[in-house]
């Protein structure tokens, strides 16, 4: 077999875009992570010392722990809630359009606007949330209370992104051919079994997608905590990207570079593990005959 090397020419534009948008910036970060950088401009090569510093830093571990807790919580709520909404949506008629528009609204609002809207909601003096909670005697204060702030962010994320899971699930749900329900009816399956053995397996591809999208996206959450409380009170809403950005902004470029790479590594590894797990889960491989 003779190869025609001119084929590579066709890849040049794509490779150029990739290089500019991903590869070159990433290499810059790798470069930073291996140096101490004095006054923001004088580098000294230090090997992996920055990585060791990051791993030993309790502030980094704290941010990572908060991040994991946050991502796991929103996934645990958004996925089941999204499926439930999708299954209870009307399948035809005017109701379809209404529910699609209602679900679409949160998705259309940019991150920073969402942050500002919720910041207004959560003002302790004029905010809607504080007002409503005061009726039941709860004193809500997002800028002082270490529980109120992360919980508010959690609610914000659920409000903002559950519709995405619902829309994806709805599309998957509508695509299930009628014959599957008829077969299940003939086979005498209960409603739970229809959900468990017909609907859920058919939704699996879209759920894997929704799960990974929500995991990666929530792991990158930045604008919302920044606008709501600026990462506070204390550092209770300082998640990974906010933490790394703070370090870069304070000219600890070497440290920030190393933290970014560890952060990237965690996201890639966890996404890969989730992807593998979700694809095996319920594929009938582990069943005995």
């Amino acid at each position, binding site marked *: 077999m003779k190869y025609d090397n001119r084929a590579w020419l066709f890849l040049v534009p794509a490779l150029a875009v990739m290089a500019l948008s991903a590869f070159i910036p990433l290499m810059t970060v790798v470069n930073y992570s291996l140096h101490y950088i004095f006054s923001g401009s004088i580098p000294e090569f230090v090997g992996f010392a920055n990585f060791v510093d990051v791993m030993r830093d309790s502030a980094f571990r704290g941010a990572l722990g908060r991040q994991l807790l946050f991502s796991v919580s929103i996934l645990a709520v958004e996925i089941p809630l999204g499926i439930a909404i999708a299954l209870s949506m009307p399948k035809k008629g005017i109701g379809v359009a209404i529910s699609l528009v209602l679900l679409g609204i949160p998705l259309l609002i940019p991150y920073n606007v969402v942050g500002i809207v919720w910041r207004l909601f959560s003002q302790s003096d004029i905010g809607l949330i504080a007002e409503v909670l005061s009726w039941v005697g709860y004193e809500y204060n997002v800028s002082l209370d270490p529980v109120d702030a992360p919980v508010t962010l959690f609610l914000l994320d659920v409000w903002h992104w559950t519709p995405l899971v619902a829309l994806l699930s709805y599309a998957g749900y509508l695509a299930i051919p009628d014959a599957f329900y008829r077969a299940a009816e*003939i086979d005498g399956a209960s409603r739970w079994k229809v959900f468990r053995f017909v609907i*859920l397996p058919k939704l699996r591809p879209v759920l894997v997608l929704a799960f990974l999208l929500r995991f990666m996206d929530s792991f990158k959450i930045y604008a919302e905590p920044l606008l709501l409380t600026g990462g506070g009170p204390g550092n209770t809403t300082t998640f990974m990207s906010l933490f790394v950005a703070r370090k870069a902004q304070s000219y600890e470029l070497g440290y920030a570079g190393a933290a970014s790479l560890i952060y990237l590594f965690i996201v890639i590894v966890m996404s890969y593990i989730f992807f593998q797990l979700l694809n095996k889960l319920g594929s009938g491989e582990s069943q005995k005959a």
Partner: protein
Amino acid sequence: MATIQLIDVWHSYDLEEGKTKDPQYAVENINVTYENGLAVALLGPSGCGKTTLLKIISGLTTPSKGRVLFDGKDVTELSAKERHIAQVFQFPVVYDSMNVYGNIAFPLANDGVDSDTIRKRVYEVAEILEITSLLKVPAGKLNPADKQKVSLGRGIVRPDTAAVLLDEPLTVIDPKAQWGLRRKLKQVQEELDFTMIYVTHDQHEALTFAEQVTVMQVGKIDQTGSPKELHENPESMFIGYFIGSPGMNMMESSVDEEGTVKFNGTSFKISKKLAAQLLEHGNEFTFGIRPEYVQLSPEKTKNAVSGVVKLVEDTGAYKIVTATVDTLDVKSRAPEDMSISEGDTAWLSFPEEEVKFYKDGKKVI
């Protein structure tokens, strides 16, 4: 296992949706009985109502009018499950999240059968379907033909299944696997003596599978009979050209007392007795004859009409000769060794006993 009887069944989807004004009927005036243990085919072009009829038999649709009896018992209002009907769908339906064993065991597990009985029964069914080696394979990973077998397996695993309905089960199966699956279906039907109703628009599938074929056209049953009956004695012109390849030759004609059948500027003779019988129904008929029965000769023969050979299609086993009689094409089947070529003059004769006469699409004699 059951004898299935449909009595004066009509169904309209308009009525189902509540439109009572001028309802369109998907099937009308259906009266048919399928004996227990019979292999039946429902044959007809797309949109003729055969799937509606299948749904009515299976209990997924309640007919607007009429009754469905299983072994003489009225089941019109019963659901598919209560009727013990199994169905194999056009697109293979398997439960992806279970393996083959889990799939076949599913109906029994839902019925609350104990696991030892289930295991025994699943292995029996797998044995019949020759899929024992696949029992541990996830159902989603099977090829379409094996998925259809699993689907059939779920249908026959319940010992009290009344009938198995197959809705164009070979549609998505590649041609090579079709033959094997069709043979398997037939074999299962014969071994287990289940009533099986096979819906298809493919006459070849229908005629090779079924002992009894119901041919449908725009919502009505045209004829129910054995493949031989349909072939030799089509009750309507529709069946004449729908069944058989090529279909029946059909020619507009007029008949007189002398037994002269005139068509397209030429004529041949039939017996005076037959002519007299025909004349009771008028003198304009469409006569039909299967290509197999048209006698073709290169030399002039008695009572033959002449035509010019337009096309010779050699199938290897025989030749299909299209001859033009004036402006009309008549197809006939000629022996492989007959030397005839395009442009030749050929003599065609129509044996009286094989000629069918139709009026308004229905057979007269």
